């Protein structure tokens, strides 16, 4: 059941600059992670995506959240039942 998700995560991690990838469900529970993605961030990622979706147009696509810091960039996107976070090195 989880094999397809594992394969997709493995594929994502091989993109240049990506250091970690994390998939979270709507309850903030981790579905899968690869690389250096911090597992303790699962709840925060889901909550951030939920809050950002409230600010965006309800009929439009869900927003992509970009968090920038000295150490790298985190991109977060929420879909129907899943929130994905990509960790990139700067």
């Amino acid at each position: 059941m989880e094999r397809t998700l594992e394969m997709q995560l493995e594929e994502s991690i091989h993109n240049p600059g990506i250091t970690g990838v994390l998939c979270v469900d709507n309850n903030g529970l981790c579905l899968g992670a690869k690389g250096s993605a911090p597992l303790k961030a699962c709840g925060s990622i889901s909550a951030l995506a939920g809050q950002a979706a409230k600010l965006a147009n309800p009929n439009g696509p869900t927003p992509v959240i970009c968090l920038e810091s000295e150490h790298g960039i985190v991109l977060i996107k929420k879909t129907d039942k899943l929130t994905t976070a990509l960790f990139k090195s700067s």
Partner: protein
Amino acid sequence: MSLMCTSSGLLFRLRIRHSDNTKLKSLLNSEGSLLAFSGFPDKDASAAGAIASNIWTSFQKSGQYSLDDGKLNCVLVECKLGKIAITKVANLLLCLCAKETVSYGMLKTKIEAMAAYLEEPLSQVASS
């Protein structure tokens, strides 16, 4: 008669989604007695089933008293050697034991998929 009315049919349904990360899947009645299982030996499965049923009943009672809501959906438990998920299917309990490496989200998704798969045939058995 549906396939689920035979024990072999029930075992087939429990085994069909078996993966390397799942140690045990068991189906229990409301008293914690084992109806069917797929995974490690019978003695361990019976003990695990009784404990799972006890945990479920305790949480359901607590929910009813403190939240005035007895509709418990799912219980996730983290143990030293693995993780356990418990949910209700028809009038029975479904318990899934997984390795400690399985994430909570995946475990919850698995037990929900399993419960949806067993819901219809077990409801037929429960109503007959």
